[in-house]
Protein backbone atom coordinates (compact mmCIF):
# COMPACT_ATOMS: atom_id res chain seq x y z
CA UNK A 1 0.00 0.00 0.00
CA UNK A 2 1.30 3.41 -0.89
CA UNK A 3 1.70 5.56 2.18
CA UNK A 4 0.13 8.97 1.53
CA UNK A 5 1.84 10.48 4.58
CA UNK A 6 5.40 10.07 3.37
CA UNK A 7 6.88 13.16 1.72
CA UNK A 8 8.84 13.10 -1.49
CA UNK A 9 12.43 14.35 -1.13
CA UNK A 10 13.20 17.53 -3.03
CA UNK A 11 16.08 19.99 -3.19
CA UNK A 12 15.77 23.76 -3.17
CA UNK A 13 17.25 24.94 -6.48
CA UNK A 14 16.17 28.56 -6.64
CA UNK A 15 14.81 31.18 -4.27
CA UNK A 16 13.26 34.45 -5.42
CA UNK A 17 12.33 37.16 -2.95
CA UNK A 18 9.06 38.46 -4.35
CA UNK A 19 8.20 41.52 -2.32
CA UNK A 20 9.87 44.55 -0.76
CA UNK A 21 8.94 43.41 2.73
CA UNK A 22 10.98 40.23 1.99
CA UNK A 23 8.42 38.01 3.71
CA UNK A 24 7.17 36.37 0.52
CA UNK A 25 9.57 34.16 -1.39
CA UNK A 26 9.16 31.76 -4.26
CA UNK A 27 10.99 28.48 -3.81
CA UNK A 28 11.81 26.25 -6.71
CA UNK A 29 12.31 22.57 -5.92
CA UNK A 30 13.76 19.78 -7.99
CA UNK A 31 12.91 16.17 -7.25
CA UNK A 32 15.79 14.09 -5.99
CA UNK A 33 14.45 11.01 -7.75
CA UNK A 34 13.34 10.92 -11.36
CA UNK A 35 10.50 8.48 -10.64
CA UNK A 36 9.03 10.88 -8.08
CA UNK A 37 8.91 13.61 -10.66
CA UNK A 38 7.03 11.38 -13.07
CA UNK A 39 4.60 10.28 -10.39
CA UNK A 40 3.86 13.83 -9.27
CA UNK A 41 1.10 14.66 -11.75
CA UNK A 42 -0.78 17.78 -10.84
CA UNK A 43 -3.06 20.47 -12.22
CA UNK A 44 -3.23 24.18 -11.41
CA UNK A 45 -5.13 24.84 -8.18
CA UNK A 46 -3.79 21.83 -6.33
CA UNK A 47 -1.62 22.15 -3.29
CA UNK A 48 1.05 20.16 -1.51
CA UNK A 49 2.28 19.81 2.05
CA UNK A 50 5.74 21.32 2.34
CA UNK A 51 7.48 19.14 4.81
CA UNK A 52 10.40 20.36 6.86
CA UNK A 53 11.69 17.60 9.03
CA UNK A 54 11.80 18.55 12.65
CA UNK A 55 9.31 21.36 12.15
CA UNK A 56 6.29 19.85 10.46
CA UNK A 57 4.21 20.46 7.40
CA UNK A 58 2.42 23.37 5.85
CA UNK A 59 -0.14 23.21 3.02
CA UNK A 60 0.82 25.55 0.18
CA UNK A 61 -0.71 26.01 -3.26
CA UNK A 62 1.47 24.97 -6.17
CA UNK A 63 2.57 28.11 -8.01
CA UNK A 64 4.25 26.50 -10.97
CA UNK A 65 2.36 24.99 -13.88
CA UNK A 66 2.49 21.36 -14.99
CA UNK A 67 3.52 22.74 -18.37
CA UNK A 68 6.84 23.71 -16.77
CA UNK A 69 8.44 20.31 -16.20
CA UNK A 70 11.44 19.58 -14.07
CA UNK A 71 10.55 21.56 -11.02
CA UNK A 72 7.85 22.70 -8.61
CA UNK A 73 7.41 26.21 -7.33
CA UNK A 74 5.73 27.45 -4.19
CA UNK A 75 5.30 31.03 -3.15
CA UNK A 76 5.37 31.18 0.60
CA UNK A 77 4.69 33.91 3.09
CA UNK A 78 6.68 33.77 6.31
CA UNK A 79 4.16 33.17 9.05
CA UNK A 80 4.30 30.02 11.15
CA UNK A 81 6.98 27.59 12.25
CA UNK A 82 7.35 25.76 8.95
CA UNK A 83 7.26 28.78 6.68
CA UNK A 84 9.68 30.71 8.88
CA UNK A 85 12.15 27.84 8.75
CA UNK A 86 11.68 27.57 5.01
CA UNK A 87 12.48 31.25 4.62
CA UNK A 88 15.84 30.65 6.27
CA UNK A 89 16.73 27.81 3.91
CA UNK A 90 19.27 28.15 1.18
CA UNK A 91 19.70 26.68 -2.27
CA UNK A 92 20.85 23.09 -1.93
CA UNK A 93 18.78 22.30 1.15
CA UNK A 94 16.85 19.04 1.11
CA UNK A 95 13.28 18.84 2.33
CA UNK A 96 10.01 17.11 1.53
CA UNK A 97 6.91 17.71 -0.53
CA UNK A 98 3.77 15.66 -0.07
CA UNK A 99 1.16 15.77 -2.78
CA UNK A 100 -0.31 16.78 -5.07
CA UNK A 101 -3.37 17.20 -2.85
CA UNK A 102 -6.88 18.49 -3.30
CA UNK A 103 -8.86 19.09 -6.43
CA UNK A 104 -7.77 21.62 -9.06
CA UNK A 105 -9.19 24.51 -10.99
CA UNK A 106 -11.79 22.79 -13.19
CA UNK A 107 -9.72 22.79 -16.38
CA UNK A 108 -12.20 20.77 -18.41
CA UNK A 109 -15.01 23.05 -17.39
CA UNK A 110 -12.93 26.13 -18.22
CA UNK A 111 -12.01 24.80 -21.67
CA UNK A 112 -13.77 26.57 -24.50
CA UNK A 113 -14.79 29.48 -22.31
CA UNK A 114 -13.62 33.02 -21.75
CA UNK A 115 -11.72 33.15 -18.50
CA UNK A 116 -11.60 36.06 -16.04
CA UNK A 117 -8.95 35.67 -13.40
CA UNK A 118 -9.17 37.87 -10.33
CA UNK A 119 -6.40 37.77 -7.78
CA UNK A 120 -5.55 39.77 -4.70
CA UNK A 121 -2.19 40.04 -2.97
CA UNK A 122 -0.31 36.91 -2.19
CA UNK A 123 -3.25 34.62 -3.05
CA UNK A 124 -2.26 34.94 -6.69
CA UNK A 125 -0.08 31.82 -6.58
CA UNK A 126 -2.35 29.09 -7.92
CA UNK A 127 -3.88 31.62 -10.33
CA UNK A 128 -0.41 32.15 -11.72
CA UNK A 129 -0.19 28.42 -12.19
CA UNK A 130 -3.49 28.49 -14.06
CA UNK A 131 -2.43 31.43 -16.26
CA UNK A 132 0.84 29.78 -17.19
CA UNK A 133 -1.01 26.57 -17.89
CA UNK A 134 -3.51 28.25 -20.20
CA UNK A 135 -0.89 30.43 -21.87
CA UNK A 136 1.23 27.44 -22.73
CA UNK A 137 1.31 27.11 -26.48
CA UNK A 138 -0.12 23.60 -26.38
CA UNK A 139 -3.09 24.79 -24.32
CA UNK A 140 -3.79 28.37 -25.37
CA UNK A 141 -6.17 27.40 -28.16
CA UNK A 142 -8.34 25.40 -25.72
CA UNK A 143 -9.46 28.61 -23.99
CA UNK A 144 -11.22 31.73 -25.16
CA UNK A 145 -10.37 35.26 -24.17
CA UNK A 146 -8.29 35.50 -21.00
CA UNK A 147 -8.62 38.53 -18.76
CA UNK A 148 -6.47 38.92 -15.66
CA UNK A 149 -7.17 41.42 -12.91
CA UNK A 150 -4.55 41.39 -10.21
CA UNK A 151 -4.14 43.79 -7.32
CA UNK A 152 -1.92 44.31 -4.31
CA UNK A 153 -1.82 46.91 -1.55
CA UNK A 154 1.19 48.67 -3.06
CA UNK A 155 3.63 48.13 -5.93
CA UNK A 156 6.20 46.56 -3.64
CA UNK A 157 3.77 43.79 -2.76
CA UNK A 158 3.04 42.64 -6.31
CA UNK A 159 4.45 39.18 -6.84
CA UNK A 160 5.83 37.63 -10.06
CA UNK A 161 6.86 41.05 -11.41
CA UNK A 162 8.88 39.59 -14.31
CA UNK A 163 6.00 37.46 -15.43
CA UNK A 164 3.55 40.33 -15.15
CA UNK A 165 5.82 42.33 -17.46
CA UNK A 166 6.00 39.47 -19.93
CA UNK A 167 2.23 38.93 -19.93
CA UNK A 168 1.67 42.64 -20.46
CA UNK A 169 3.43 42.32 -23.80
CA UNK A 170 1.22 39.48 -25.00
CA UNK A 171 -1.81 40.25 -27.09
CA UNK A 172 -3.62 37.00 -26.31
CA UNK A 173 -4.11 38.01 -22.69
CA UNK A 174 -5.59 41.18 -21.25
CA UNK A 175 -3.72 42.09 -18.10
CA UNK A 176 -4.97 44.65 -15.57
CA UNK A 177 -2.62 45.20 -12.66
CA UNK A 178 -3.71 47.55 -9.92
CA UNK A 179 -2.48 48.70 -6.54
CA UNK A 180 -4.52 50.18 -3.72
CA UNK A 181 -2.03 53.01 -3.51
CA UNK A 182 0.89 53.65 -5.81
CA UNK A 183 4.21 55.32 -5.10
CA UNK A 184 6.33 57.88 -6.94
CA UNK A 185 7.52 55.32 -9.52
CA UNK A 186 4.16 53.68 -10.10
CA UNK A 187 2.72 54.42 -13.49
CA UNK A 188 0.03 51.78 -13.52
CA UNK A 189 -3.51 51.69 -12.34
CA UNK A 190 -4.62 52.62 -8.83
CA UNK A 191 -7.75 51.36 -7.17
CA UNK A 192 -9.20 48.38 -5.33
CA UNK A 193 -9.75 45.12 -7.16
CA UNK A 194 -13.59 45.26 -7.05
CA UNK A 195 -13.55 48.75 -8.57
CA UNK A 196 -11.18 47.67 -11.32
CA UNK A 197 -13.38 44.67 -12.05
CA UNK A 198 -16.31 47.02 -12.52
CA UNK A 199 -14.24 49.23 -14.82
CA UNK A 200 -12.88 46.35 -16.87
CA UNK A 201 -16.40 44.86 -16.91
CA UNK A 202 -15.65 41.52 -18.55
CA UNK A 203 -18.60 40.03 -20.37
CA UNK A 204 -20.33 37.10 -18.70
CA UNK A 205 -21.06 35.62 -22.10
CA UNK A 206 -19.65 32.08 -22.12
CA UNK A 207 -17.32 33.19 -19.33
CA UNK A 208 -16.09 31.83 -16.02
CA UNK A 209 -14.35 33.84 -13.35
CA UNK A 210 -11.77 32.38 -11.05
CA UNK A 211 -11.29 34.47 -7.90
CA UNK A 212 -8.68 34.10 -5.22
CA UNK A 213 -7.73 36.67 -2.64
CA UNK A 214 -8.26 37.92 0.89
CA UNK A 215 -11.82 37.43 2.21
CA UNK A 216 -12.53 41.16 2.20
CA UNK A 217 -11.63 41.42 -1.48
CA UNK A 218 -13.79 38.45 -2.37
CA UNK A 219 -16.71 39.88 -0.42
CA UNK A 220 -16.69 43.12 -2.43
CA UNK A 221 -15.81 41.52 -5.76
CA UNK A 222 -18.63 38.99 -5.85
CA UNK A 223 -21.44 41.59 -6.22
CA UNK A 224 -19.59 43.06 -9.19
CA UNK A 225 -19.66 39.72 -10.98
CA UNK A 226 -23.28 39.13 -10.05
CA UNK A 227 -24.06 42.51 -11.62
CA UNK A 228 -22.10 41.52 -14.71
CA UNK A 229 -24.37 38.52 -15.03
CA UNK A 230 -22.06 35.72 -13.88
CA UNK A 231 -23.99 32.79 -12.44
CA UNK A 232 -22.86 31.08 -9.23
CA UNK A 233 -21.74 28.06 -11.25
CA UNK A 234 -19.35 30.31 -13.13
CA UNK A 235 -17.72 31.95 -10.15
CA UNK A 236 -15.00 29.71 -8.82
CA UNK A 237 -12.80 30.22 -5.80
CA UNK A 238 -10.44 28.42 -3.50
CA UNK A 239 -10.90 28.02 0.26
CA UNK A 240 -8.34 28.08 2.98
CA UNK A 241 -8.52 26.13 6.22
CA UNK A 242 -6.07 24.84 8.72
CA UNK A 243 -4.96 21.39 7.57
CA UNK A 244 -2.72 18.64 8.82
CA UNK A 245 -3.12 15.40 6.93
CA UNK A 246 -4.31 16.83 3.62
CA UNK A 247 -6.24 13.67 2.81
CA UNK A 248 -9.48 14.01 4.73
CA UNK A 249 -8.56 12.02 7.82
CA UNK A 250 -7.43 14.35 10.57
CA UNK A 251 -10.81 15.99 10.80
CA UNK A 252 -10.20 19.73 11.07
CA UNK A 253 -10.76 21.30 7.67
CA UNK A 254 -14.29 20.27 6.94
CA UNK A 255 -16.90 22.72 5.83
CA UNK A 256 -20.11 20.85 6.20
CA UNK A 257 -19.58 17.29 5.05
CA UNK A 258 -16.83 18.33 2.62
CA UNK A 259 -13.17 18.37 3.48
CA UNK A 260 -11.35 21.38 2.06
CA UNK A 261 -8.20 19.31 1.67
CA UNK A 262 -9.75 16.39 -0.17
CA UNK A 263 -12.95 17.71 -1.77
CA UNK A 264 -11.55 21.23 -2.25
CA UNK A 265 -9.88 23.65 -2.02
CA UNK A 266 -11.59 24.71 -5.28
CA UNK A 267 -15.34 25.22 -5.12
CA UNK A 268 -17.80 27.14 -7.26
CA UNK A 269 -20.07 29.57 -5.47
CA UNK A 270 -22.95 27.28 -6.35
CA UNK A 271 -21.21 24.46 -4.47
CA UNK A 272 -20.36 26.69 -1.53
CA UNK A 273 -23.98 27.74 -1.25
CA UNK A 274 -24.89 24.16 -0.45
CA UNK A 275 -22.34 23.92 2.34
CA UNK A 276 -22.53 25.22 5.87
CA UNK A 277 -21.15 28.72 6.30
CA UNK A 278 -18.06 27.86 8.26
CA UNK A 279 -15.05 29.34 6.52
Amino acid sequence: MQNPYIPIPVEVIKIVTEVDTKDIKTFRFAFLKKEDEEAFRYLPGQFAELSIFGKGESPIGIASSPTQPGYLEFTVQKAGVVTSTLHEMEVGAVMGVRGPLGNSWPIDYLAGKNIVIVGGGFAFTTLRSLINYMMDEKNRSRFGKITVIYGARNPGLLIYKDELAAWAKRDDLSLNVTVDKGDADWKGREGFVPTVCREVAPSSENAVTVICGPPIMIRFTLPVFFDLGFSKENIITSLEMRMKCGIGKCGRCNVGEKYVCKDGPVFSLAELDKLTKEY
Partner: protein
Amino acid sequence: MEKRLIKKETLAGIVGELAGKMRVCAPMKAEDQVLFRVLEAGEKPLVDFANTKNAPKNFLFPRTEMMMKYTRTGKGMVFAGEEETDRGQTLLFGVRPCDARSFTLLDMLFDQEKYRDPYYINKRKRTTVVALACVHPPYTTCFCTSVGGNPVSSEGVDLLLTDLGEAYLAEFLTPKGEALLSAFGGTPAGKGAEKKKEEIAARAAGEIASRIPAREIKPILDTHFEDPFWDTLHLKCLACGTCTYLCPTCHCFDISDEVKGNDGIRIRNWDSCMFPMFTKETSGHNPRPSQKERWRQRIMHKFRYYVDNFGAISCVGCGRCVMACPVNLDIRKVVADIAKL
Protein backbone atom coordinates in the same frame (compact mmCIF):
# COMPACT_ATOMS: atom_id res chain seq x y z
CA MET B 1 -19.96 -20.45 10.81
CA GLU B 2 -18.62 -22.57 13.64
CA LYS B 3 -20.42 -22.29 16.99
CA ARG B 4 -19.05 -23.79 20.17
CA LEU B 5 -19.80 -23.87 23.83
CA ILE B 6 -16.95 -22.92 26.12
CA LYS B 7 -17.06 -23.68 29.82
CA LYS B 8 -17.34 -20.46 31.69
CA GLU B 9 -14.51 -20.96 34.15
CA THR B 10 -12.03 -21.83 31.41
CA LEU B 11 -12.30 -18.62 29.38
CA ALA B 12 -9.87 -16.40 31.30
CA GLY B 13 -7.33 -19.23 31.29
CA ILE B 14 -7.61 -19.72 27.53
CA VAL B 15 -6.93 -16.05 26.92
CA GLY B 16 -4.13 -16.04 29.47
CA GLU B 17 -2.53 -18.96 27.65
CA LEU B 18 -2.80 -17.14 24.32
CA ALA B 19 -0.99 -14.20 25.87
CA GLY B 20 2.16 -16.29 25.89
CA LYS B 21 1.93 -16.82 22.14
CA MET B 22 0.79 -13.48 20.79
CA ARG B 23 0.11 -9.91 21.82
CA VAL B 24 -3.12 -9.98 23.79
CA CYS B 25 -4.83 -6.80 24.93
CA ALA B 26 -7.61 -7.19 27.42
CA PRO B 27 -9.46 -5.41 30.20
CA MET B 28 -7.52 -5.37 33.44
CA LYS B 29 -7.99 -3.70 36.77
CA ALA B 30 -5.78 -0.61 37.17
CA GLU B 31 -6.24 0.90 40.62
CA ASP B 32 -9.93 1.77 40.68
CA GLN B 33 -10.49 1.61 36.93
CA VAL B 34 -10.77 -1.06 34.28
CA LEU B 35 -8.45 -0.35 31.34
CA PHE B 36 -7.31 -2.27 28.30
CA ARG B 37 -3.69 -3.27 28.43
CA VAL B 38 -1.27 -5.82 27.03
CA LEU B 39 -1.27 -9.04 29.06
CA GLU B 40 1.84 -10.73 30.30
CA ALA B 41 2.13 -14.43 29.41
CA GLY B 42 -0.32 -16.41 31.52
CA GLU B 43 -1.99 -13.32 32.96
CA LYS B 44 -5.74 -13.78 33.11
CA PRO B 45 -7.96 -10.97 31.85
CA LEU B 46 -11.14 -9.74 33.49
CA VAL B 47 -14.17 -11.47 32.04
CA ASP B 48 -16.71 -10.00 34.43
CA PHE B 49 -16.72 -6.24 34.08
CA ALA B 50 -19.01 -3.49 32.81
CA ASN B 51 -16.85 -1.76 30.23
CA THR B 52 -13.39 -0.23 30.15
CA LYS B 53 -12.78 3.42 30.89
CA ASN B 54 -10.80 3.89 27.68
CA ALA B 55 -11.98 2.75 24.29
CA PRO B 56 -10.07 -0.01 22.51
CA LYS B 57 -9.49 2.29 19.52
CA ASN B 58 -6.17 2.98 21.19
CA PHE B 59 -4.86 -0.29 19.75
CA LEU B 60 -5.72 0.63 16.15
CA PHE B 61 -5.31 4.35 16.42
CA PRO B 62 -3.00 5.04 19.36
CA ARG B 63 -2.84 8.31 21.24
CA THR B 64 0.66 8.70 19.84
CA GLU B 65 1.89 6.88 16.80
CA MET B 66 5.09 7.12 14.83
CA MET B 67 4.67 7.83 11.11
CA MET B 68 8.24 8.11 9.89
CA LYS B 69 11.81 8.68 10.92
CA TYR B 70 14.48 10.96 9.55
CA THR B 71 18.05 11.97 10.24
CA ARG B 72 20.06 15.13 9.93
CA THR B 73 22.74 15.31 7.27
CA GLY B 74 24.88 18.12 5.95
CA LYS B 75 22.07 19.16 3.61
CA GLY B 76 19.26 19.06 6.13
CA MET B 77 17.06 16.35 7.48
CA VAL B 78 16.51 13.39 5.21
CA PHE B 79 13.91 10.68 5.27
CA ALA B 80 15.15 7.57 7.04
CA GLY B 81 12.20 5.20 6.86
CA GLU B 82 8.60 4.52 7.59
CA GLU B 83 7.37 3.23 10.84
CA GLU B 84 7.82 -0.51 11.05
CA THR B 85 4.31 -1.78 11.04
CA ASP B 86 4.90 -5.48 11.42
CA ARG B 87 4.41 -6.10 15.08
CA GLY B 88 2.73 -9.45 14.72
CA GLN B 89 -0.82 -10.46 15.42
CA THR B 90 -2.80 -8.86 18.19
CA LEU B 91 -5.76 -10.32 19.97
CA LEU B 92 -8.13 -7.76 21.36
CA PHE B 93 -10.12 -9.57 24.00
CA GLY B 94 -13.14 -8.41 25.95
CA VAL B 95 -14.34 -5.76 23.53
CA ARG B 96 -17.97 -4.79 24.02
CA PRO B 97 -20.17 -4.97 20.90
CA CYS B 98 -20.53 -1.19 20.81
CA ASP B 99 -16.76 -0.73 20.78
CA ALA B 100 -16.36 -3.42 18.13
CA ARG B 101 -18.84 -1.53 15.98
CA SER B 102 -16.63 1.53 16.31
CA PHE B 103 -13.97 -0.31 14.30
CA THR B 104 -16.31 -0.65 11.34
CA LEU B 105 -17.07 3.07 11.61
CA LEU B 106 -13.37 3.92 11.71
CA ASP B 107 -12.79 1.61 8.72
CA MET B 108 -15.08 3.81 6.66
CA LEU B 109 -12.82 6.78 7.20
CA PHE B 110 -9.35 5.26 7.36
CA ASP B 111 -9.93 2.71 4.62
CA GLN B 112 -11.43 4.99 1.98
CA GLU B 113 -10.60 4.10 -1.57
CA LYS B 114 -8.77 7.27 -2.56
CA TYR B 115 -6.55 7.71 0.46
CA ARG B 116 -5.99 4.66 2.58
CA ASP B 117 -4.38 5.12 5.96
CA PRO B 118 -1.61 2.53 6.17
CA TYR B 119 -1.00 2.91 9.91
CA TYR B 120 -4.58 2.13 10.83
CA ILE B 121 -5.12 -0.50 8.18
CA ASN B 122 -1.98 -2.46 9.06
CA LYS B 123 -2.99 -2.61 12.69
CA ARG B 124 -6.56 -3.45 11.82
CA LYS B 125 -5.49 -6.33 9.59
CA ARG B 126 -3.38 -7.82 12.33
CA THR B 127 -5.98 -7.51 15.04
CA THR B 128 -8.49 -10.17 15.93
CA VAL B 129 -11.47 -8.85 17.86
CA VAL B 130 -12.94 -11.14 20.48
CA ALA B 131 -16.07 -9.52 21.85
CA LEU B 132 -18.08 -10.21 24.96
CA ALA B 133 -21.75 -9.63 24.25
CA CYS B 134 -23.68 -7.60 26.83
CA VAL B 135 -26.05 -10.03 28.49
CA HIS B 136 -27.26 -7.05 30.48
CA PRO B 137 -26.46 -3.52 29.36
CA PRO B 138 -23.52 -2.58 31.59
CA TYR B 139 -24.71 0.94 32.27
CA THR B 140 -27.97 2.86 32.37
CA THR B 141 -26.22 5.38 30.10
CA CYS B 142 -25.79 2.79 27.31
CA PHE B 143 -27.75 3.71 24.20
CA CYS B 144 -26.35 1.45 21.48
CA THR B 145 -29.79 0.54 20.16
CA SER B 146 -30.48 4.18 19.38
CA VAL B 147 -27.52 4.48 17.02
CA GLY B 148 -27.82 1.25 15.08
CA GLY B 149 -26.17 -1.24 17.39
CA ASN B 150 -27.39 -3.75 19.90
CA PRO B 151 -26.02 -5.50 22.98
CA VAL B 152 -25.03 -8.63 21.03
CA SER B 153 -24.03 -6.93 17.78
CA SER B 154 -21.41 -8.81 15.82
CA GLU B 155 -20.34 -5.88 13.60
CA GLY B 156 -16.58 -5.61 13.63
CA VAL B 157 -16.28 -8.81 15.67
CA ASP B 158 -14.26 -11.89 14.73
CA LEU B 159 -15.26 -14.06 17.64
CA LEU B 160 -18.36 -13.24 19.66
CA LEU B 161 -18.82 -14.71 23.11
CA THR B 162 -22.22 -14.68 24.77
CA ASP B 163 -22.61 -15.73 28.38
CA LEU B 164 -25.39 -18.32 28.48
CA GLY B 165 -25.07 -19.05 32.19
CA GLU B 166 -22.83 -22.13 32.54
CA ALA B 167 -21.04 -21.65 29.26
CA TYR B 168 -20.19 -19.10 26.65
CA LEU B 169 -21.62 -19.45 23.20
CA ALA B 170 -18.63 -18.79 20.95
CA GLU B 171 -19.44 -17.74 17.39
CA PHE B 172 -16.42 -17.82 15.09
CA LEU B 173 -17.63 -15.23 12.64
CA THR B 174 -14.68 -14.60 10.35
CA PRO B 175 -11.57 -16.41 9.15
CA LYS B 176 -9.61 -14.46 11.74
CA GLY B 177 -12.03 -15.74 14.36
CA GLU B 178 -11.85 -19.29 13.03
CA ALA B 179 -8.09 -19.21 13.43
CA LEU B 180 -8.79 -19.25 17.16
CA LEU B 181 -10.87 -22.45 17.03
CA SER B 182 -8.19 -24.76 18.36
CA ALA B 183 -7.12 -22.34 21.07
CA PHE B 184 -10.67 -21.91 22.36
CA GLY B 185 -11.67 -25.53 21.96
CA GLY B 186 -15.08 -26.20 23.49
CA THR B 187 -17.89 -28.42 22.34
CA PRO B 188 -20.19 -27.89 19.35
CA ALA B 189 -23.18 -25.73 20.21
CA GLY B 190 -26.66 -26.93 19.36
CA LYS B 191 -29.91 -25.24 18.49
CA GLY B 192 -30.75 -24.85 22.17
CA ALA B 193 -27.79 -22.59 22.73
CA GLU B 194 -28.69 -20.47 19.74
CA LYS B 195 -32.24 -20.09 20.95
CA LYS B 196 -31.01 -19.14 24.40
CA LYS B 197 -28.79 -16.50 22.87
CA GLU B 198 -31.68 -15.03 20.96
CA GLU B 199 -33.68 -14.77 24.16
CA ILE B 200 -30.79 -13.10 25.90
CA ALA B 201 -30.34 -10.70 23.00
CA ALA B 202 -33.98 -9.68 23.03
CA ARG B 203 -33.99 -9.21 26.79
CA ALA B 204 -30.76 -7.22 26.81
CA ALA B 205 -32.00 -4.89 24.08
CA GLY B 206 -35.16 -4.37 26.08
CA GLU B 207 -33.14 -3.51 29.15
CA ILE B 208 -31.41 -0.58 27.45
CA ALA B 209 -32.65 2.30 29.57
CA SER B 210 -31.47 5.24 27.45
CA ARG B 211 -33.21 5.77 24.16
CA ILE B 212 -32.43 8.85 22.13
CA PRO B 213 -33.69 10.06 18.76
CA ALA B 214 -30.22 9.89 17.22
CA ARG B 215 -31.38 8.80 13.80
CA GLU B 216 -34.19 11.32 13.71
CA ILE B 217 -32.06 14.42 14.08
CA LYS B 218 -30.22 14.26 10.74
CA PRO B 219 -32.84 16.26 8.80
CA ILE B 220 -33.04 18.75 11.65
CA LEU B 221 -29.27 19.23 11.64
CA ASP B 222 -29.38 19.68 7.87
CA THR B 223 -31.49 22.79 8.31
CA HIS B 224 -30.40 24.08 11.71
CA PHE B 225 -26.77 25.01 11.25
CA GLU B 226 -27.66 28.52 12.32
CA ASP B 227 -29.94 28.17 15.29
CA PRO B 228 -30.09 29.90 18.66
CA PHE B 229 -29.88 26.42 20.15
CA TRP B 230 -26.12 26.43 19.61
CA ASP B 231 -25.70 29.74 21.43
CA THR B 232 -26.14 28.33 24.92
CA LEU B 233 -25.42 24.64 24.54
CA HIS B 234 -21.70 25.02 25.02
CA LEU B 235 -21.63 27.44 27.93
CA LYS B 236 -20.51 25.00 30.58
CA CYS B 237 -18.16 23.08 28.30
CA LEU B 238 -14.59 23.22 29.58
CA ALA B 239 -13.08 22.71 26.13
CA CYS B 240 -11.18 19.70 27.42
CA GLY B 241 -10.73 16.60 25.33
CA THR B 242 -12.22 14.05 27.71
CA CYS B 243 -15.25 13.22 25.55
CA THR B 244 -13.28 12.91 22.34
CA TYR B 245 -10.32 11.07 23.86
CA LEU B 246 -12.52 8.45 25.47
CA CYS B 247 -14.83 8.21 22.47
CA PRO B 248 -14.40 4.99 20.46
CA THR B 249 -15.25 6.72 17.18
CA CYS B 250 -13.48 10.09 17.43
CA HIS B 251 -10.52 9.99 15.12
CA CYS B 252 -9.17 13.52 14.75
CA PHE B 253 -5.43 13.83 14.99
CA ASP B 254 -2.56 16.24 14.82
CA ILE B 255 0.79 15.64 13.16
CA SER B 256 3.96 16.89 14.80
CA ASP B 257 7.68 16.40 14.71
CA GLU B 258 10.08 15.61 17.48
CA VAL B 259 13.83 15.85 17.25
CA LYS B 260 16.63 14.59 19.45
CA GLY B 261 20.18 15.13 18.37
CA ASN B 262 20.46 14.15 14.71
CA ASP B 263 17.36 11.98 14.74
CA GLY B 264 13.80 13.00 14.24
CA ILE B 265 10.42 11.41 14.05
CA ARG B 266 7.10 12.49 12.70
CA ILE B 267 4.28 11.38 14.93
CA ARG B 268 0.57 11.74 15.05
CA ASN B 269 -1.30 12.40 18.26
CA TRP B 270 -4.94 12.48 19.09
CA ASP B 271 -6.41 15.91 18.70
CA SER B 272 -9.85 17.14 19.58
CA CYS B 273 -12.42 19.38 17.91
CA MET B 274 -13.05 20.70 21.41
CA PHE B 275 -9.64 22.39 21.54
CA PRO B 276 -9.43 26.04 20.44
CA MET B 277 -6.13 25.37 18.66
CA PHE B 278 -7.64 22.62 16.53
CA THR B 279 -8.67 24.93 13.70
CA LYS B 280 -6.70 28.06 14.54
CA GLU B 281 -4.79 29.19 11.50
CA THR B 282 -1.32 30.70 11.50
CA SER B 283 -2.81 34.09 10.69
CA GLY B 284 -4.70 33.98 13.97
CA HIS B 285 -8.02 33.52 12.20
CA ASN B 286 -10.12 30.73 13.61
CA PRO B 287 -13.14 29.52 11.63
CA ARG B 288 -14.48 27.99 14.81
CA PRO B 289 -13.70 30.83 17.18
CA SER B 290 -15.66 29.76 20.24
CA GLN B 291 -16.86 26.64 21.98
CA LYS B 292 -20.21 27.19 20.29
CA GLU B 293 -18.84 26.35 16.85
CA ARG B 294 -16.78 23.51 18.30
CA TRP B 295 -19.78 21.87 19.91
CA ARG B 296 -21.78 22.30 16.78
CA GLN B 297 -18.95 20.67 14.85
CA ARG B 298 -18.85 17.71 17.22
CA ILE B 299 -22.58 17.10 16.94
CA MET B 300 -22.70 17.79 13.20
CA HIS B 301 -19.75 15.53 12.54
CA LYS B 302 -21.22 12.61 14.40
CA PHE B 303 -24.85 12.87 13.46
CA ARG B 304 -24.85 14.67 10.10
CA TYR B 305 -21.57 14.74 8.17
CA TYR B 306 -20.68 11.12 8.87
CA VAL B 307 -24.13 10.12 7.70
CA ASP B 308 -23.65 12.20 4.55
CA ASN B 309 -20.25 10.74 3.81
CA PHE B 310 -20.56 7.16 4.99
CA GLY B 311 -24.22 6.53 5.73
CA ALA B 312 -23.67 5.88 9.42
CA ILE B 313 -23.86 7.82 12.65
CA SER B 314 -20.41 8.20 14.14
CA CYS B 315 -21.47 7.18 17.63
CA VAL B 316 -21.85 3.71 19.06
CA GLY B 317 -23.76 4.62 22.19
CA CYS B 318 -21.18 3.39 24.70
CA GLY B 319 -21.99 6.27 27.03
CA ARG B 320 -18.36 6.99 27.95
CA CYS B 321 -18.68 10.69 27.23
CA VAL B 322 -21.88 10.82 29.26
CA MET B 323 -20.19 9.35 32.29
CA ALA B 324 -16.83 11.07 31.95
CA CYS B 325 -17.78 14.61 30.98
CA PRO B 326 -16.55 16.75 33.86
CA VAL B 327 -19.51 19.10 33.55
CA ASN B 328 -22.16 16.53 32.69
CA LEU B 329 -22.77 17.88 29.19
CA ASP B 330 -24.85 14.85 28.35
CA ILE B 331 -24.93 13.98 24.65
CA ARG B 332 -28.18 12.09 25.19
CA LYS B 333 -29.83 15.27 26.36
CA VAL B 334 -28.27 17.32 23.56
CA VAL B 335 -29.63 14.93 20.95
CA ALA B 336 -33.04 14.86 22.60
CA ASP B 337 -33.10 18.65 22.68
CA ILE B 338 -32.16 18.86 19.00
CA ALA B 339 -35.03 16.53 18.15
CA LYS B 340 -37.36 19.12 19.68
CA LEU B 341 -36.11 21.95 17.43
